[in-house]
C-alpha cells in the first residue's frame, strides 16, 4: 500500500487528502511493521535538516525503510526536506543524510537573488522536467509548483538530475536514482499539476 512515513514532520494530512480524493489506498506509518507492508513510500519533511534526520532516526522506522528501499527496491519519493534527506550531508547541519543519492545540500547564494526577500525561496515557480522521465510524463515544461525552502540538493551525478528550477541559480528541483525519487516542491499544494504527479507516482 502507498505509505507516508510519519516521523512528526511535514503536512501529512494534505498528502492523505489528495490520495483519498484519488481513491488510492494510503496508510500513515508510525511503526516499522507498517513500513514493511508498504509498496510505495512517501518521505515528507519540513523544517531543519538535523531535526528531520534526528526525528527519523528516533522513529524506529529507519531500518525497515532502508530494507524496503535498498533491498526490496520499492519506489520512494522524498518531498521538500524529505528530498534533502536523500543526500549524504547538508550545510544546514552536522547529521548524516540517508545517502541514497550522492550529493550535498547547500544554501542558496543570496547575492544572486535580486529581491528584497531572498530566502526562503517561497511561492510558485516553474519547473523544467527532463524528457523521458516517467514520473513527469504528464507534466508540461514550465509548469508551476509551490516551493518553500532555503537549501537545495546539489547532486553529484548529472544523470540523476531529472528536473531543474531557477532561483538565482539553476538547481535540482527533482532527482532520481533507480527507485529513489526526490522532489523539492510541494505537489500536495500545487493544484492539478501536483495531483497529477502524486497520481503518477502511485502508478510507477
Amino acid at each position: 500500500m502507498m505509505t507516508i512515513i510519519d516521523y512528526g514532520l511535514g503536512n501529512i494530512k494534505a498528502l492523505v487528502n489528495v490520495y483519498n480524493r484519488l481513491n488510492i489506498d494510503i496508510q500513515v506509518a508510525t511503526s516499522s511493521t507498517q513500513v514493511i507492508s508498504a509498496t510505495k513510500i512517501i518521505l515528507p519533511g519540513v523544517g531543519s535538516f538535523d531535526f528531520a534526520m534526528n526525528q527519523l532516526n528516533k522513529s524506529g522506522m529507519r531500518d525497515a525503510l532502508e530494507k524496503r528501499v535498498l533491498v526490496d527496491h520499492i519506489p520512494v519519493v522524498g518531498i521538500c526536506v524529505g528530498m534533502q534527506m536523500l543526500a549524504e550531508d547538508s550545510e544546514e547541519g552536522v547529521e548524516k543524510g540517508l545517502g541514497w543519492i550522492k550529493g550535498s545540500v547547500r544554501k542558496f547564494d543570496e547575492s544572486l537573488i535580486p529581491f528584497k526577500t531572498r530566502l526562503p525561496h517561497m511561492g510558485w515557480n516553474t519547473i523544467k522536467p527532463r524528457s523521458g522521465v516517467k514520473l513527469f510524463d504528464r507534466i508540461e515544461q514550465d509548469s508551476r509548483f509551490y516551493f518553500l525552502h532555503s537549501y537545495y540538493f546539489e547532486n553529484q551525478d548529472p544523470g540523476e538530475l531529472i528536473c531543474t528550477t531557477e532561483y538565482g541559480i539553476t538547481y535540482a528541483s527533482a532527482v532520481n536514482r533507480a527507485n529513489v525519487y526526490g522532489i523539492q516542491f510541494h505537489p500536495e499544494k500545487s493544484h492539478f499539476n501536483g495531483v497529477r504527479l502524486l497520481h503518477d507516482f502511485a502508478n510507477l
Partner: protein
Amino acid sequence: MLQPRIIPCLLVHNKGLVKTTKFKDPKYVGDPINAVKIFNEKEVDELMVVDIDATVKGLEPNYFLIESLALECRMPLCYGGGIKTAEQAQRIFRLGVEKIAMSSAVVQNPHIVGEVASRVGNQSVVVVMDVRKKFLSNNYEIYTHNGKKATGLDAVKFAVQMEASGAGELVLNDIENDGMMKGFDLSLIDKVRASVSIPMTVMGGAGSIEDLGKVIEKYGIIGVAAGSFFVFKGKFRAVLINYPTPQEKLTFLNSYFMPNWESKQTN
C-alpha cells in the same frame, strides 16, 4: 521563474463568509467551504481565511471548520483568528494548514512568535499587522480586535521586532483602505518593506488588476491580497467569486512583473 503571489482573503463571521468596509459593516457573501471550493478550481496561489469573531468573542479557533477548509485546499492555506497558544497553533497545523496567522496574541506576548516557530517552523508563522495612519503624522499604528483597539505600537518598529522574533511572513493590512477598492497605500508599503526582508503580503484597497499590478511592478516578489476584489463584481457590489485565469495571470505578469524583474533574475 519565481512569481509574486495573488491571494484572496476570506473573512468568517457568524459561520458565514463576509466582506467588511474599513473593518465594519460585514456583508454576507456566501458559505466558506463553497467559496474555498471555487477558489480551488480557479487555482489561486494561496488562500487566507480569517475568523473575525474568535478573538473579539474570546472563542477557541473553530477546528472543525479549519479541518474542512484544509481538506478542500490544493494550495497553501493560511488560517488566522483566535490563536493564542503554541498548542493551538500546532493543532491547527496538524489539520493540514500551512500557515498560522496571529495578531492580538502577538501584541500581548511577542514571545509567542518564537514559541510557535519552534514547533511548526518559522516559515509557517504569519504575523498580521492591522494598521491605521496616525492623526497628523506619516506614521502608522498597530490595531487589534478588528481595528477597535489601538495599541500605541508603531508599525515599522513592530515589523522589525516581529522579524527578529522569528516571524516567517508579515501581512500588512490597511484598515482605512479595507473594502474601499481604490488602490493600495504605497507609502505604507514602502515604509514597512524597507525595514524588513522576510516575505510580506499586503492587503487593503485592491479594486482592479492594475492596483495589484502597481504593487508587483514596484516590489517584485511580494504577496498581494484582496477581499472585495475577488468576491464582488460591478459598482453595485454583486457577489461573484472571481480570480484571474492562468492565462490572464500570465498576461498580467507579462505586463507588470517580467519587464521589471526578469532581467534582474537572470543576470
